[in-house]
């Protein structure tokens, strides 16, 4: 029983990080119908920048989360303005290829900046917290808490603020939004920036748990795609619920049937959703 609860909690905590990553990715997809392959590099840059700040310059961890999130957010904003915006009206394959190419360039840029070695944040939230008979990871608790707060803030921003409403308007009815006087291009910059901000924060939060290197993005971005297929393409809430589901399936499944089958199970889940419920749990479906 203790093991079962511990696994469940561990899965949910892991899912929190996936949520931060997937929500940003899904936001970008929701607004622009652009699948951002470079999202993994937002994450790895976030993690490596975080390591540089915390280990290299002694910046406190939570401050590093804020600084890096802003920096990667700005990076996302610039990437949208300089690259993605130019193909956003083209066929989807154009933006797909563009973000894929950008991802490759970023990986190699990262190798030039940080080198190929694996980095970590030794001593940062590395211990455990005893909760009754359970032992929970400090790093995961911190990451989960920050992730939930941040996704919550972004959700509130989308729901309440003028900008947020404009983002949703462009996401749901782009033509009507444009004729209503919303500057769709600016909204797209903002969305990409917001996606980058969330991925950057996720990167720093991951750094105390996982080995960071410029090629780590690929290890996580695939999971983010699984999350949004299960949760629903373009749905912010769906990405959050999907992420928690994937986290639990990964950890509990790994315990019950081994990681090889648990990983297969994740993709089986993805295929099942694509075939039986392509809109996912909360998806917006295909825009016609």
């Amino acid at each position, binding site marked *: 029983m203790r*093991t079962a609860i*511990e*696994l469940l909690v*561990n*899965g949910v905590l*892991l899912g929190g990080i996936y949520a931060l990553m997937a929500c940003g990715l899904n936001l970008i997809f929701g607004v622009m119908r652009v699948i951002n392959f470079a999202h993994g590099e937002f994450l790895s840059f976030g993690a490596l920048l975080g390591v540089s700040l915390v280990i290299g310059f002694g910046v406190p961890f939570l401050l590093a989360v804020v600084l890096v999130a802003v920096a990667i957010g700005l990076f996302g904003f610039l990437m949208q303005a300089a690259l993605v915006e130019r193909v956003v*009206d*083209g*066929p989807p394959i*154009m933006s797909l290829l563009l973000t894929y190419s950008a991802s490759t360039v970023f990986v*190699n840029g990262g*190798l030039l900046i940080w080198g*190929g*070695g*694996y*980095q*970590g944040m*030794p*001593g940062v939230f*590395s*211990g*455990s917290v*005893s909760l009754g008979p359970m*032992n*929970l*990871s*400090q*790093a*995961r608790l911190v990451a989960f808490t920050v992730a939930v707060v941040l996704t919550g803030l972004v959700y509130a921003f989308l729901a309440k603020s003028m900008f947020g409403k404009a983002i949703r308007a462009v996401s749901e009815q782009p033509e009507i939004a444009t004729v209503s006087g919303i500057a769709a291009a600016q909204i797209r910059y903002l969305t990409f920036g917001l996606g980058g901000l969330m991925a950057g924060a996720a990167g720093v939060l991951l750094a*105390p*748990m*996982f*080995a*960071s*290197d410029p*090629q*780590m993005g*690929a*290890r*996580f971005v*695939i999971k983010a795609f699984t999350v949004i297929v299960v949760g629903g393409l373009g749905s912010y809430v769906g990405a959050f619920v999907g992420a928690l589901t994937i986290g639990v399936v*990964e*950890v*509990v*499944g*790994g*315990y019950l049937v*081994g*990681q*090889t089958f*648990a*990983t297969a199970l994740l993709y089986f889940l993805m295929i099942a959703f694509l075939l039986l419920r392509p809109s996912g749990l909360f998806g917006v479906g295909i825009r016609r």
Partner: protein
Amino acid sequence: MRTRRWQRIGGTGRGFTRGGQAAWLAGLAAAVALAAGAGPVAAQKPITIGAPIALTGNLADSAAHVRRGYDLWLEEVNGRGGLLGRPVQFQIYDDRSDAATAARLTERLITSDKVDLLISPFGTAGTSTASAVSEKHKMVMINAGGASESIHQRGFKYIFQVVTPVPYYVEGVFPLAAKAGYKSLVFVSRDYAAARDMEKAIRNWAPQHGIEIRMVEYFPAATTDFASYIARARDIKPDIWVSVGYPPEAIEMIRQMKATNYLPKMFVHNGVSQEDFLKATGKDAEYAFGMSLYEPSLPTKGNPEFVKRFKAKYNYEPGYYALLGYAGCLILEEAVRKTGSLDQDKLAATLRALQTETPFGPYAVNETGAQTAKKGLIVQVLKGHREIVWPFNQKTADAVLPMPPWTSR
């Protein structure tokens, strides 16, 4: 309007490809013409060593060290006057950590670049496919980075292993465990050929030392979360946890063990013997055991001088990946000198009979070309450094067992 522009660009695709081919062929023709008209070859035509290696992809981080081993040797050999009185150069291609690409590049090195000598790619998968190509062309290949036994179980005659075969990586765990009176083990590993070899070795050695195998689990590449295996180990309480794979997995395992306050009496991972592990886990690295093939403190022939030169050039202490590249080149150098020519059949005969020692350790192979002389080491991180704790006659420290639990550090 815009859509049409995209279609137009898409529509020109075929024409572009054809044009590209034509340009490429023209370039090739020009190159051939140039080569033919180049006149008499310089008296000192360099000896070229072909080496496909992972400069990008998931093996690139590790292979970068191998490459530095090549580069250091290249400087030295040319300083010694080259090979057979000719300067030496490398023709290196990036196999992108992909075995099929490695095979294609090997074909290109042999048939198009017409290299004189070959060194294998880094890793078992690439070495398997590349050596099938070199074997077809009856070219000798030095197997510097393919530790799986399967490479040498195909009846090949031109592949010679410098790296220690996988089973010997784990050998030392058993005498150490037996000395400490340990009785049970779990094996949790990345799923790749080397790990399957290691499982066989464990199944062979564990019963001989009275150790029970309680769990054997494989995880796919790119697994980052080990919570499920840690939970299972907590239930079945093994004395020893053995893993084989790449450094990030060692980093993630030890971090996640600490984060859930779990630790076996003995944690062993080959990744522990890489510098990245120490850097990324800091104090949590302490007491972890590593399977290693080489340490800078090893009393092998020429090792102190090698370590000095390597540190001077690259500003860090060499790990075993660097040694694979360096020792592979040294063995090739010695074999070519002994043979006195680049005749591949004679070179193969020399390599089969050769018995020598490099800073990496001894070299000798059996009739399949598999390494028989060079065994593994077990190291333990003590006070921030890797100390050799097995073989007992080469130890630089006594093993601390059991590893102290997280709460009492």
